[in-house]
């Protein structure tokens, strides 16, 4: 078994595709891709924030203070129009004549202290994900409304500390029982699994294809089958190879991201990696990595079984391609709001690992449920390994 394992590792280490998947991709390409994405996102945001939006204001003279705030806002530039009707203004916005139309009712009088609510209309494109115009307007209206509130409260004799009592009768002092780590875990925990689990799968897939279907295609399998080594040892040697590459990919990626994060954090004066590591603790980190072992065993045995069934490298790729999509479904399930680690969810493969990692990052793991997750995953891995070994004994599979 070990001879098979060592030979497979030696051969894979000389394969450019494997090196790319297991080493180059996690160390260089992933960080570069994520870095570029971050850079592009930052640039897009910066450009969007610097963008000047052309606006028209109807009846601006009725709310001169607001009109002035809008006029001096760095992201708005006033243009003129003869249009006054909402539908005509909407068509003009759609046509790109200007970006925003503010319609203040003709009967509005900002200076008056009338206790009457006024309804204003803002016409702009609300489709963009970053609703910058909406955010700017929200701030401006909030500030302007506060001014009106103060004036109106004063007219009814409310001044000083009474103003706060009216505007905010109940002020909440929120003290979180959650530690920083728990908050961090809730936000990031699910995504850690979302990154690590597919990496384990990806790290397993190419080697599994190469050392099973690839071996069949190259004609080396037949020669191997007539060596004085049991087929169980043969498949276990191959299984260990696939397991090693799967875990190595995940580990190298984590170390790579950690390293790059630390480096960039040090240069930029942000110590998020150091903080995350300090919050997590070595035992939890080891537990997270340990949980990936039975999960990768599941991937390795399933992929090896599929791959040995295939007649060729290409056929194996056709089987494994759709399977990679299936991996994301239980992971996405774990990210849904309200899905928690319970005795029931602890039995859903992959979802359980994802939820467990989240709880470990939060530091709120229930050791009983953790044991169940590990036990159920190990059991499933054991069943799949047994199936893989059985599958390798079948002539119909080996000589398809």
């Amino acid at each position, binding site marked *: 078994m070990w*001879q098979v394992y060592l*030979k497979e590792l*030696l051969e894979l280490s000389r394969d450019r595709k494997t090196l790319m998947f297991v080493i180059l991709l996690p160390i260089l390409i992933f960080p570069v891709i994520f870095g570029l994405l971050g850079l592009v996102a930052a640039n897009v945001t910066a450009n969007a924030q610097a963008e000047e939006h052309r606006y028209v204001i109807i009846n601006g003279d009725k709310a001169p203070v607001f009109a002035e705030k809008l006029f001096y806002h760095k992201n708005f530039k006033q243009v003129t129009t003869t249009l006054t009707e909402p539908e005509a203004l909407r068509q003009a916005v759609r046509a790109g004549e200007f970006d925003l139309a503010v319609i203040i009712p003709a009967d509005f009088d900002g200076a008056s202290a009338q206790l009457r609510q006024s309804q204003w209309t803002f016409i702009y494109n609300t489709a963009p994900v970053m609703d910058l115009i909406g955010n700017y307007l929200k701030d401006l209206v909030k500030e302007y409304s506060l001014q009106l509130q103060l004036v109106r409260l004063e007219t009814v004799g409310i001044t000083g500390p009474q103003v706060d009592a009216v505007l905010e009768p109940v002020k909440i002092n929120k003290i979180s029982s959650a530690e920083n780590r728990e908050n961090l875990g809730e936000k990031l925990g699910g995504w850690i699994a979302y990154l690590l689990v597919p990496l384990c799968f990806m790290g397993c897939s190419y080697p599994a294809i190469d050392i099973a279907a690839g071996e069949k295609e190259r004609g080396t399998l*037949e020669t*191997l089958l*007539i060596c004085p080594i*049991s087929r169980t040892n043969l498949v276990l040697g191959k299984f260990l190879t696939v397991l090693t590459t799967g875990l190595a990919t995940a580990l190298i990626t984590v170390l790579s991201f950690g390293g790059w994060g630390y480096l960039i954090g040090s240069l930029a004066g942000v110590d998020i990696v150091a903080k995350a590591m300090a919050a997590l603790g070595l035992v939890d980190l080891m537990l997270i990595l340990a949980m990936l072992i039975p999960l990768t065993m599941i991937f390795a045995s399933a992929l090896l079984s599929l791959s040995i069934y295939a007649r060729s490298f290409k056929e194996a790729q056709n089987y494994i391609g759709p399977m990679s999509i299936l991996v994301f479904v239980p992971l996405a399930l774990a990210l849904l709001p309200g899905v928690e680690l319970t005795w029931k969810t602890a039995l859903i493969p992959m979802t359980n690992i994802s939820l467990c990692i989240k709880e470990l990052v939060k530091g709120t793991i229930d050791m009983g449920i953790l044991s169940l997750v590990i036990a159920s995953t190990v059991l499933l891995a054991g069943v799949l390994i047994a199936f893989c070994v059985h599958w390798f004994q079948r*002539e119909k599979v080996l000589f398809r």
Partner: protein
Amino acid sequence: MIEIRQLAKAFALEKGQKLSEAELQDVRYTGRSFCSVRDVSFSCKQGDVIGLLGPNGAGKTTTLRMLSTALKPDAGSIWLDGQDVLRDPLLARRKIGFLSSSTGLYGRLTAFENVAYFARLHGMSEVALRQRIDELFTMLDMHSFASRRAELMSSGMKQKTAIARAVVHSPALVVLDEPTTGLDIMTTQTVLDFIRGLKAAGTPVIFSTHHLDEVSSLCDRVVVIHQGSSAFDGSLTTFSQLSPQGDLRQAFMAVIKQESA
């Protein structure tokens, strides 16, 4: 030395596989299965070189695969040195050296690594395998490409490496499946010389071939397989006498005609 009795092996047909008219006439197709080998028997004694002949698809490769334990027969028995191969395939694998019709080398491993890997799988120690590989590489003139990866070798180099790999454990019986197919004249000669060397050393060899000149120059015995059954099993002399002119081609055709009738 090795005795094969009434071997049979059937394969299930693919779902939806339609049979041609010719296939429907073929006695090997029964229901939804194809009986690749129906009844093959022959024996090989110490020092014998047996030529396994037969048309394409006759069942030669399946027979050799069963002999080498890659496939398990549905019926029949194989005895090697008095031991039941089917009961203890691992023991048989230690004693048999098999060269399949494809060289079956690991492209990313060198010639030395390819041979050494199989030597290790046969349980040879590092010292013993190095000594044996050196001996084989000298015999087959392989030292010049010992550290070259198989993917960069010529077909002749690959075939030599495959031969070295097949016999690295000094097998008691060597089985070769069409060892000279697709080789150039020089490499073919190397392979034939190698078989002669095995014969001289008293190692029995069973090899399948379509080249009757190889049979005439190397074999003591001939086995003809036709439609999954042994159609002839006898000495080269008896086989050649099936043709009035002693021509092996005519003898082969006579056996096939007789069986087809």
